[in-house]
């Protein structure tokens, strides 16, 4: 207790105070970037606080508090498994979504080393998948203008030495839902890894996967919890020493309170999903409709078969970074796939693969906190912001 008290006193020495940003309150802005991350679901917050007291012990220990921790971890695993359509012993918690993708790709490839090392993946996979397969012979399967994978090309890409196929359930950049079940049927014996990061807790989890990944941060759980599910019978060989944690598929102990909060959040959002899907779809339909009416603005992605909460559009002649900054100045936080907003200065590989405009790009993603009024205000502000930036660049006449 004394040590804790000292630590809390030492906070005064830190230059940063949580919850306060310099100049204005951190809650003043309207965040329309839930696909990047969102606040803890209230149920998860309660669970996290309770678990800090109740779930601190090592679940691998045989004494009472260890058994209690084991019980809680088993409960979290069972709850997540239910939402994934998996068995509890197929579900592993990982340090985050990227770690789940890396582990999934590496473990599945090592498990199929006898067959070969060729990988088939869509051209719009998460960059973590592209990085994970970079050292292997791989075929990137193209997508159409709406961002949907070409199943004929997918079938042709599969070879006798194909060890793994990867298909994102829905792109976090444009929201188009992928034909996962039909792609899986074409895979035959080849295991299919599905990155379900954006669908978990928001839309139906597709069947047909051999490996499935997700991230709690994307469904309202805490950061620092990923999930990797591996179907029984899929050969998986970890590239690291196997320990007693997480069936040997993710090294070391899990942060139990965060895992419990993640499981509670997933249950909560999945319970709300049916109603939220309708509400958010109506809002994103409205955004798509009104934004498409603006001059020289193209809404991208499938208009119907898509994630309920996400809209992406590109504004001709406008710089994406300026657009993000101008909207931020108006109190709206959005993300962009334009090259000037990425650390690599490369345009989004997803937008390039779709053949759509990569500059002037804006992604709006809604959450349970987004209100009709937020969308009204955003749609009232956007046309003037775009027009202002075009006037500033001297392209109003083009």
């Amino acid at each position, binding site marked *: 207790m004394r040590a804790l008290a000292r630590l809390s006193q030492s906070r005064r020495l830190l230059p940063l105070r949580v919850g306060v940003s310099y100049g204005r309150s951190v809650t003043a802005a309207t965040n329309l970037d839930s696909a990047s991350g969102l606040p803890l679901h209230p149920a998860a917050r309660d669970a996290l606080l309770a678990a800090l007291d109740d779930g601190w012990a090592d679940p691998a220990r045989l004494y009472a508090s260890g058994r209690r921790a084991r019980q809680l971890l088993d409960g979290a695993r069972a709850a997540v498994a239910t939402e994934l359509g998996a068995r509890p012993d197929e579900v592993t918690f990982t340090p985050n979504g990227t770690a789940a993708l890396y582990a999934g790709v590496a473990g599945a490839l090592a498990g199929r080393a006898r067959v070969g090392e060729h990988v088939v993946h869509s051209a719009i996979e998460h960059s973590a998948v592209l990085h994970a397969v970079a050292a292997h012979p791989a075929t990137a399967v193209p997508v159409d203008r709406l961002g949907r994978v070409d199943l004929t090309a997918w079938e042709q890409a599969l070879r006798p030495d194909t060890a793994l196929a990867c298909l994102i359930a829905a792109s976090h950049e444009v929201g188009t839902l992928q034909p996962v079940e039909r792609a899986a049927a074409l895979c035959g014996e080849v295991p299919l890894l599905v990155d379900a990061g954006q669908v978990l807790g928001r839309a139906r989890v597709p069947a047909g996967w051999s490996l499935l990944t997700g991230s709690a941060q994307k469904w309202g759980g805490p950061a620092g919890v990923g999930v990797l599910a591996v179907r029984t019978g899929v050969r998986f060989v970890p590239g690291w020493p196997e320990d007693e944690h997480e069936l040997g598929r993710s090294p070391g102990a899990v942060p139990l309170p965060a895992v419990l909060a993640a499981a509670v959040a997933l249950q909560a959002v999945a319970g709300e999903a049916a109603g939220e899907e309708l509400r958010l779809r109506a809002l994103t339909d409205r955004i798509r409709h009104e934004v498409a009416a603006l001059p*020289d603005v193209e809404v991208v992605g499938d208009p119907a078969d898509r994630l309920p909460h996400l809209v992406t559009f590109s504004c001709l002649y406008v*710089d994406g970074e300026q657009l993000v900054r101008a909207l931020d100045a108006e109190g709206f936080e959005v993300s962009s796939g334009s090259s000037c907003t990425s650390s690599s200065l490369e345009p989004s590989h997803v937008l390039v693969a779709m053949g759509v405009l990569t500059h002037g790009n804006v992604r709006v993603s809604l959450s349970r906190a987004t209100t009709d009024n937020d969308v009204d205000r955003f749609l009232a502000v956007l046309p003037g912001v775009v027009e202002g930036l075009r006037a500033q660049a001297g392209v109003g006449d083009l």
Partner: protein
Amino acid sequence: MTGDSHRPAIDCLGKPCPLPVIELARALAGVELGEAVTLLADDPAAASDIAAWCRMRGQRLERAEPPSYTVVRVS
């Protein structure tokens, strides 16, 4: 090629997107229907953005050999 052999290429080398597309739009507005404009652009987004611009504006991308792009005004 559609009769633009004497018109110099627009040099957008080193210019970030959307500048190459802006200069392309401006140049194409100044030529007759059927005439072409050649643009040099090496921004990583140029290839996709020039093609997308041509599609959105109904113009014809006749040749794309980065960093050189030739666009014919057809509308």
